[in-house]
Protein backbone atom coordinates (compact mmCIF):
# COMPACT_ATOMS: atom_id res chain seq x y z
CA UNK A 1 0.00 0.00 0.00
CA UNK A 2 3.04 2.28 0.73
CA UNK A 3 0.89 5.05 2.12
CA UNK A 4 2.18 8.62 2.57
CA UNK A 5 -0.09 10.98 4.50
CA UNK A 6 0.49 14.69 5.19
CA UNK A 7 -2.17 16.01 7.53
CA UNK A 8 -3.12 19.20 9.35
CA UNK A 9 -5.30 17.15 11.69
CA UNK A 10 -4.06 15.67 14.97
CA UNK A 11 -3.84 11.88 14.82
CA UNK A 12 -3.36 8.98 17.21
CA UNK A 13 -0.40 7.01 15.82
CA UNK A 14 -1.37 3.76 17.57
CA UNK A 15 -4.90 3.85 16.23
CA UNK A 16 -3.59 4.72 12.78
CA UNK A 17 -1.17 1.76 12.92
CA UNK A 18 -3.84 -0.65 14.07
CA UNK A 19 -6.23 0.36 11.29
CA UNK A 20 -3.49 0.26 8.66
CA UNK A 21 -2.19 -3.12 9.80
CA UNK A 22 -5.64 -4.66 9.69
CA UNK A 23 -5.85 -3.77 5.99
CA UNK A 24 -2.27 -4.84 5.38
CA UNK A 25 -2.63 -8.31 6.86
CA UNK A 26 -5.33 -9.10 4.32
CA UNK A 27 -2.72 -8.58 1.58
CA UNK A 28 0.38 -9.94 3.35
CA UNK A 29 -0.29 -12.92 5.63
CA UNK A 30 3.50 -13.60 5.78
CA UNK A 31 4.32 -10.45 7.78
CA UNK A 32 6.39 -11.36 10.82
CA UNK A 33 7.76 -8.01 11.97
CA UNK A 34 6.87 -4.33 12.11
CA UNK A 35 9.23 -1.60 13.22
CA UNK A 36 7.79 1.81 14.06
CA UNK A 37 9.01 5.29 14.94
CA UNK A 38 6.76 7.91 16.52
CA UNK A 39 8.00 11.47 16.93
CA UNK A 40 6.22 13.73 19.42
CA UNK A 41 6.35 17.47 20.04
CA UNK A 42 8.44 18.35 23.12
CA UNK A 43 7.58 21.30 25.38
CA UNK A 44 11.20 22.48 25.30
CA UNK A 45 14.06 22.95 22.84
CA UNK A 46 17.62 24.13 23.37
CA UNK A 47 16.84 25.09 26.95
CA UNK A 48 13.71 27.14 26.17
CA UNK A 49 10.06 26.36 26.88
CA UNK A 50 8.10 25.80 23.66
CA UNK A 51 4.38 26.58 23.77
CA UNK A 52 3.40 25.87 20.17
CA UNK A 53 4.91 24.59 16.97
CA UNK A 54 4.04 25.43 13.38
CA UNK A 55 5.24 23.03 10.71
CA UNK A 56 5.56 24.50 7.23
CA UNK A 57 6.27 22.33 4.18
CA UNK A 58 6.64 22.42 0.40
CA UNK A 59 3.48 20.48 -0.40
CA UNK A 60 4.18 18.82 -3.75
CA UNK A 61 7.85 18.16 -3.02
CA UNK A 62 7.19 16.74 0.44
CA UNK A 63 4.83 14.11 -0.89
CA UNK A 64 7.10 13.40 -3.87
CA UNK A 65 10.15 12.98 -1.64
CA UNK A 66 8.41 10.73 0.89
CA UNK A 67 7.08 8.51 -1.90
CA UNK A 68 10.56 8.34 -3.36
CA UNK A 69 12.25 7.19 -0.12
CA UNK A 70 9.42 4.70 0.47
CA UNK A 71 10.11 3.17 -2.96
CA UNK A 72 13.86 3.18 -2.27
CA UNK A 73 13.32 1.33 1.02
CA UNK A 74 11.31 -1.34 -0.80
CA UNK A 75 14.18 -1.81 -3.25
CA UNK A 76 16.90 -1.85 -0.63
CA UNK A 77 15.40 -4.21 1.96
CA UNK A 78 13.17 -7.27 1.96
CA UNK A 79 10.15 -5.43 3.27
CA UNK A 80 6.48 -5.77 2.44
CA UNK A 81 5.16 -2.30 3.10
CA UNK A 82 5.91 1.13 4.55
CA UNK A 83 3.83 3.90 6.07
CA UNK A 84 4.68 7.56 6.67
CA UNK A 85 2.26 9.98 8.35
CA UNK A 86 3.46 13.55 9.00
CA UNK A 87 1.62 16.39 10.65
CA UNK A 88 1.81 19.97 9.31
CA UNK A 89 0.37 23.28 10.54
CA UNK A 90 -0.10 24.33 14.18
CA UNK A 91 0.38 21.86 17.02
CA UNK A 92 0.85 21.67 20.80
CA UNK A 93 3.22 19.76 23.12
CA UNK A 94 2.60 15.98 23.19
CA UNK A 95 1.01 16.02 19.72
CA UNK A 96 2.38 13.39 17.37
CA UNK A 97 4.48 14.93 14.59
CA UNK A 98 5.47 11.85 12.63
CA UNK A 99 4.74 8.13 12.36
CA UNK A 100 6.97 5.85 10.29
CA UNK A 101 6.56 2.07 10.00
CA UNK A 102 8.06 -0.75 7.97
CA UNK A 103 6.70 -4.29 7.71
CA UNK A 104 8.78 -7.36 6.83
CA UNK A 105 8.99 -11.11 7.37
CA UNK A 106 11.83 -10.64 9.88
CA UNK A 107 13.01 -7.90 12.27
CA UNK A 108 16.32 -6.98 10.61
CA UNK A 109 14.83 -5.56 7.45
CA UNK A 110 11.98 -3.92 9.36
CA UNK A 111 14.38 -2.13 11.76
CA UNK A 112 16.76 -1.04 8.99
CA UNK A 113 14.06 0.25 6.65
CA UNK A 114 12.28 2.16 9.44
CA UNK A 115 15.54 3.81 10.52
CA UNK A 116 16.35 4.70 6.91
CA UNK A 117 12.94 6.31 6.35
CA UNK A 118 13.00 8.51 9.46
CA UNK A 119 16.62 9.61 8.92
CA UNK A 120 16.00 10.47 5.26
CA UNK A 121 12.81 12.29 6.21
CA UNK A 122 14.57 14.33 8.89
CA UNK A 123 17.56 15.23 6.73
CA UNK A 124 15.99 15.81 3.32
CA UNK A 125 12.17 16.11 3.33
CA UNK A 126 11.18 19.79 2.98
CA UNK A 127 9.53 20.52 6.34
CA UNK A 128 10.43 23.45 8.61
CA UNK A 129 9.57 24.01 12.27
CA UNK A 130 8.72 27.39 13.74
CA UNK A 131 8.51 27.45 17.54
CA UNK A 132 6.51 29.79 19.72
CA UNK A 133 8.32 30.57 22.98
CA UNK A 134 7.12 32.79 25.85
CA UNK A 135 9.43 35.48 24.43
CA UNK A 136 8.37 35.20 20.76
CA UNK A 137 8.69 32.92 17.73
CA UNK A 138 11.77 31.48 16.03
CA UNK A 139 12.59 29.08 13.20
CA UNK A 140 14.33 25.87 14.20
CA UNK A 141 17.65 25.99 12.38
CA UNK A 142 18.74 22.37 12.57
CA UNK A 143 17.49 18.98 13.65
CA UNK A 144 18.78 17.14 16.68
CA UNK A 145 21.44 14.52 15.84
CA UNK A 146 20.26 10.91 15.61
Amino acid at each position, binding site marked *: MQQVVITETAFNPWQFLQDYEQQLQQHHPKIGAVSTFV*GTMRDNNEGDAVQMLF*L*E*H*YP*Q*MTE*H*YLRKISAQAMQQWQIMDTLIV*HRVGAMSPNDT*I*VLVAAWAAHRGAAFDACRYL*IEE*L*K*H*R*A*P*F*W*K*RETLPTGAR*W*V*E*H*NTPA
Partner: protein
Amino acid sequence: MFRPHPYKTNIMSITVKFFASLRETIGKQEVKLDLSQPLTVAQVWTLAGDNAHFPEHILAAINLEYVDRDTMVQDGDEIAFFPPVTGG
Protein backbone atom coordinates in the same frame (compact mmCIF):
# COMPACT_ATOMS: atom_id res chain seq x y z
CA MET B 1 12.16 33.54 -44.34
CA PHE B 2 11.58 33.29 -40.55
CA ARG B 3 12.58 36.35 -38.57
CA PRO B 4 12.29 36.51 -34.78
CA HIS B 5 10.03 39.19 -33.42
CA PRO B 6 12.31 42.20 -32.88
CA TYR B 7 10.90 43.03 -29.44
CA LYS B 8 10.50 39.51 -28.04
CA THR B 9 13.86 38.52 -26.56
CA ASN B 10 12.75 36.35 -23.62
CA ILE B 11 13.60 32.73 -24.19
CA MET B 12 12.11 31.17 -21.12
CA SER B 13 9.75 31.72 -18.20
CA ILE B 14 10.37 30.26 -14.75
CA THR B 15 8.75 30.34 -11.31
CA VAL B 16 10.89 30.85 -8.20
CA LYS B 17 9.64 29.96 -4.72
CA PHE B 18 11.09 30.74 -1.27
CA PHE B 19 10.18 28.85 1.88
CA ALA B 20 10.27 29.23 5.68
CA SER B 21 12.83 31.68 7.15
CA LEU B 22 14.10 32.44 3.65
CA ARG B 23 10.69 33.70 2.57
CA GLU B 24 10.71 36.10 5.51
CA THR B 25 14.30 37.25 4.97
CA ILE B 26 13.83 37.88 1.27
CA GLY B 27 10.29 39.14 1.66
CA LYS B 28 8.92 37.14 -1.27
CA GLN B 29 7.02 33.87 -1.54
CA GLU B 30 6.93 33.43 -5.29
CA VAL B 31 8.35 35.29 -8.27
CA LYS B 32 7.78 34.69 -11.98
CA LEU B 33 10.73 35.58 -14.17
CA ASP B 34 11.23 35.86 -17.91
CA LEU B 35 14.82 35.13 -18.83
CA SER B 36 16.58 36.33 -21.93
CA GLN B 37 19.49 33.88 -21.53
CA PRO B 38 20.07 30.47 -19.91
CA LEU B 39 20.97 30.74 -16.21
CA THR B 40 22.23 28.45 -13.47
CA VAL B 41 20.38 27.95 -10.20
CA ALA B 42 22.87 30.25 -8.43
CA GLN B 43 22.29 32.97 -11.04
CA VAL B 44 18.53 32.62 -10.62
CA TRP B 45 19.04 33.10 -6.87
CA THR B 46 20.90 36.34 -7.50
CA LEU B 47 18.27 37.59 -9.91
CA ALA B 48 15.19 36.60 -7.91
CA GLY B 49 16.42 37.34 -4.42
CA ASP B 50 18.36 40.57 -5.05
CA ASN B 51 21.37 38.94 -3.42
CA ALA B 52 24.93 38.82 -4.62
CA HIS B 53 25.96 35.38 -3.43
CA PHE B 54 24.29 32.02 -3.08
CA PRO B 55 24.74 31.06 0.60
CA GLU B 56 26.39 27.67 1.27
CA HIS B 57 23.62 26.31 3.48
CA ILE B 58 20.68 27.13 1.20
CA LEU B 59 19.07 24.16 -0.57
CA ALA B 60 17.64 24.29 -4.08
CA ALA B 61 15.17 22.15 -6.02
CA ILE B 62 13.95 22.19 -9.60
CA ASN B 63 10.55 20.64 -10.28
CA LEU B 64 10.54 18.98 -6.82
CA GLU B 65 14.02 17.37 -7.13
CA TYR B 66 17.14 18.54 -5.31
CA VAL B 67 19.73 20.13 -7.60
CA ASP B 68 23.10 21.80 -7.10
CA ARG B 69 23.87 25.45 -7.75
CA ASP B 70 25.40 24.87 -11.19
CA THR B 71 22.33 23.19 -12.70
CA MET B 72 20.92 25.08 -15.70
CA VAL B 73 17.25 25.99 -15.50
CA GLN B 74 14.86 25.21 -18.35
CA ASP B 75 11.77 26.92 -19.69
CA GLY B 76 8.77 26.29 -17.44
CA ASP B 77 10.84 25.15 -14.44
CA GLU B 78 9.75 25.70 -10.85
CA ILE B 79 12.84 26.55 -8.81
CA ALA B 80 12.59 26.44 -5.02
CA PHE B 81 15.05 27.80 -2.46
CA PHE B 82 14.86 26.86 1.20
CA PRO B 83 16.86 26.63 4.45
CA PRO B 84 18.02 23.31 5.99
CA VAL B 85 15.00 21.11 6.69
CA THR B 86 13.77 20.40 10.23
CA GLY B 87 10.89 17.94 9.96
CA GLY B 88 10.17 14.74 11.85
